[in-house]
């Protein structure tokens, strides 16, 4: 293999699995270290800078970082990254001094943001400090978008939401709330220099089955129903409730129903439990609240008698794994099951829906009604119009909205300055800083803590089921937060190898607890992976290969897969050929 190019920012970025997996590339180990030092405010700001909504995301994020966490491979359970983010938000001090200054003298450019959800708010956060005049248009009376309308208060308290939303609005954003936006042309006619569309995926999918029309008064689309609960229009649901769907919206619907007085609630899913789209912890919470989840039952029809919904019929299927690993559902031959119910909440997905965008503005739409965009710049066919969040590529989650927003804000900025939105984008950068402080001192806690993942305390079940506004998860306190933070492996503190200093004494090989390091003859990657101290079978993880060593012509090969970043290789190295260096990955935002 060729020597690894560690100057390429992506190489060490990939080693920080959590950061690499995060759409917004939040520097996770950095903020976790700050938490363990009780520097909550700084930890919060690291997050705020990268993902804009730490308090909200610390409760609601889909957590792509956690399955990626190296701890899953070295032990079992990932670090509770998301909950630690919440620790930073819950315990932070006064952040006002850390916030960017908003210029009083504006730069003369006017930007319209359509929709006041996470994507638009994050674009506003990025553009306001640059002196833009930012106008946000929102159909609801308040900002927040799906964070307000679709996430129930028992998962995301209103004050947490408002605090982070207001932080941005208070920068001096011009708000046009409470009026439906009906025409893109009308917006363009107001003379904006650029328009950002962050209207989400606002249309809940319906289910066209026999009896659907007659059952109309008893059937509710999940996201619309959640919104009417959030805005106080719906305060109770009576009788037996069936929730259709296996995603997070379904979980929110069933748990909300449970709190609004339903006699019974069950979730019926067409697919198998393990392929349900809902996050693991959302499923667990629903089950813990006594809500049965019935799998492998595709809905067949609604039964309405005397103008009242009686129940639904479901087919019985079973999943059969195909050769390609996918599941195919085959009928079991059992008769259809009838489930009695008085209300049905349909939460089987949502779609993009932009009837208000005229089709002659140069924006192309695909068959899912998603705009055709440049993936990197998020610019549409109309160079003035940019998209982000769910409105861009279909339903995702909040953290994607933040990620899109940073990209779109850069594009809007370049566009407004008359520069090329593609060629002139600022590059990514990497900085490596040695963490050595003394003979056996490192500026990070190098010692490995084998503790299992700590459980987060929950509110008393009876108490939280009685009120839809009582938050279920209580979050880690400072003490538990500090303990959980110690589980982080500090994957951003990199093992950096300098060939010319190595005397091939094998000290690093002998001390490495995970058998990551091997000195061997060079070979092709597939062979090399089997020639190491322990086989490097995880192909998603890179091999770090040195140049040929002076004495023997062998190469140093490090399998990054299960490295604990304990620094013992560097501790044991007599010549300093190994050093522990913190990789700081500079991901461009508008201001940098």
């Amino acid at each position, binding site marked *: 293999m060729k020597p690894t190019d560690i100057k390429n920012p992506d190489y060490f970025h990939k080693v920080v699995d959590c950061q690499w997996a995060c759409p917004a590339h939040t520097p996770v180990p950095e903020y976790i270290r700050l938490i363990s030092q009780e520097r909550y405010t700084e930890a919060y700001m690291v997050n705020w800078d990268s993902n804009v909504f730490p308090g909200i995301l610390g409760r609601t994020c889909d957590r792509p970082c956690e399955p990626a966490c190296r701890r899953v*491979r*070295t*032990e079992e359970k990932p670090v509770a990254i998301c909950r630690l983010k919440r620790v930073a938000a819950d315990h932070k001090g006064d952040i006002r001094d850390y916030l960017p200054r908003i210029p009083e003298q504006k730069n003369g450019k006017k930007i319209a943001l359509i929709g006041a959800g996470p994507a638009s708010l994050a674009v506003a956060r990025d553009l306001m400090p640059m002196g833009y005049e930012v106008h946000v248009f929102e159909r609801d009376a308040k900002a927040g978008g799906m964070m307000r309308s679709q996430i129930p208060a028992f998962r995301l308290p209103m004050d947490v939401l408002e605090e982070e939303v207001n932080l941005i609005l208070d920068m001096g954003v011009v708000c046009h709330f409470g009026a439906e936006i009906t025409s893109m042309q009308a917006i363009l006619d107001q003379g904006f220099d650029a328009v950002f569309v962050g209207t989400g995926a606002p249309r809940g999918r319906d289910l066209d089955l026999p009896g659907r029309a007659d059952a109309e008064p008893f059937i509710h689309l999940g996201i619309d129903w959640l919104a009417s609960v959030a805005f106080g229009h719906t305060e109770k649901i009576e009788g037996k409730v069936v929730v259709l769907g296996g995603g997070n919206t379904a979980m929110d619907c069933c748990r909300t129903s449970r709190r609004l007085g339903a006699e019974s609630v069950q979730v019926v899913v067409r697919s198998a439990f393990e392929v349900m789209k809902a996050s693991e912890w959302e499923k667990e919470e629903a089950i813990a609240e006594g809500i049965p989840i019935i799998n492998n039952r595709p809905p067949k029809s609604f039964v309405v008698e005397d103008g009242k919904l009686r129940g639904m019929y479901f087919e019985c299927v079973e999943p059969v794994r195909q050769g390609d690993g996918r599941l195919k559902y085959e009928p079991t031959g059992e008769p259809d099951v009838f489930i009695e119910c008085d209300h049905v909440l349909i939460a089987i997905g949502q779609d993009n829906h932009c009837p208000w965008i005229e089709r002659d503005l140069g924006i192309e739409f695909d068959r899912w009604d998603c705009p055709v965009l440049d993936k990197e710049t998020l610019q549409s066919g109309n160079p003035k119009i940019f998209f982000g969040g769910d409105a861009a590529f279909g339903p995702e989650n909040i953290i994607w909205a933040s990620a899109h927003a940073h990209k779109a804000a850069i594009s809007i900025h370049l566009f407004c300055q008359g520069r090329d939105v593609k060629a002139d984008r600022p590059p990514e950068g990497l900085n490596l800083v040695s963490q050595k402080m003394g003979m*056996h001192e490192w500026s990070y806690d*190098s*010692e*490995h803590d*084998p503790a299992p993942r700590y459980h987060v305390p929950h509110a008393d079940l009876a108490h939280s089921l009685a009120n839809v506004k009582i938050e279920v998860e209580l979050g880690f306190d400072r003490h538990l937060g500090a303990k959980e933070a110690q589980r982080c492996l500090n994957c951003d503190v990199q093992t950096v190898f300098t060939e010319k200093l190595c*005397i*091939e*004494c*094998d*000290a690093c*090989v*002998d*001390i490495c*607890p*995970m*058998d*990551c390091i091997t000195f061997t003859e060079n070979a092709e990657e597939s062979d090399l992976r089997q020639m190491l*101290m*322990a*086989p490097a*079978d995880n192909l998603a993880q890179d091999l770090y290969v040195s140049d040929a060593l002076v*004495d*023997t012509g062998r190469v140093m090969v490090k399998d990054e897969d*299960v490295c*604990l970043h*304990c*620094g*013992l290789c560097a*501790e*044991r*190295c*007599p*010549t300093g050929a190994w050093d522990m260096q913190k990789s700081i990955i500079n991901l461009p935002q508008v201001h940098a």
Partner: protein
Amino acid sequence: MTYVAKPRTHHPKLPRNELGLTRRDYEGAVSTLCAGCGHDSVSAAIIQACHELSIPAHRVAKLSGIGCSSKTPTYFLGKSHGFNSVHGRMPSVATGANMANRELYYIGISGDGDTASIGLGQFAHIVRRRINMTYVVDNNGTYGLTKGQFSATNDKGSTSKKGAPNLYEPIDLAMMAIQIGATFVARSFSGDKAQLVPLLKAALKHEGFAFLDVISPCVAFNNHNGSTKSYDYVRAHTEAMAVADLIPIHDEIRIDYAPGTVEDVAMPDGSTLRLHKLHGDYDPRDRVGAMDTLMRRAQAGEIATGLLYLDDDPSDCHEILNTVDGPLASLGEAELCPGSQRLEDINAAFR
């Protein structure tokens, strides 16, 4: 040296041996030697060898004297028996232990000071007595614990860290061992585990006195230009004469070598010792030839490594003395106190 404990967590795919143990189960406490010390590599090689041979740790006794080398038994086989004895007196303790219980594996760890200076007399006699053990010398040519004086194995003309040359002839422990009756003699290098581990395995399975002279650079005091026991010098001046590989009982014996270069020796436990002759007509079973080669190589400033001498029908001290078959602790009253009639018979024999 490090103060950070080595995490117990290990690679999820670390191989397990016949006892279901990983290599990590054979480790000891974390080393307090200098970072980069060759001795730590020797400890790692012993760990690997014992793991690969599936030796139960409690069937091993580790014995040592005084010195950096003699500290190392703490750093491997944490669940074995151990005796850190007086300076240069490890052979006496090993002899006693082996006489009392012949069924354990004995690993003696010594250094060039402990063996070639203060313990030279003891060394000579344990070799003569052919105690069934593996005697390892971590040989760095210097007194590391007392800050770098020349030891008795330091080559004449080799310099100290400050540049002063050594004025005395070196003791070649491998040569001495061959000359006074060791039945397995090898020399290796701490920086070459590919050679060292198979030699250690063969030595552990050898039923006689096995001696391993392991050149193990002292990074603090003897790893400079001018030293003949530095990582660089040793790498540039070694040549393997023959190496050994132990093929376990159940493994298929493959034949994929040039004729005349490999010879298989049956071991008492049913495994096979495969000798690879790497150097022309060097025959590791020719005692005189081995000594001749060692002297000539040394004269040329070269280091002959690998399996230097092997007696494939060895005898050990128990055989020489015709002792009891089992450990003394296993003897019952009947064996220990055969009765007055037996005493009468013995007495009668002297009349």
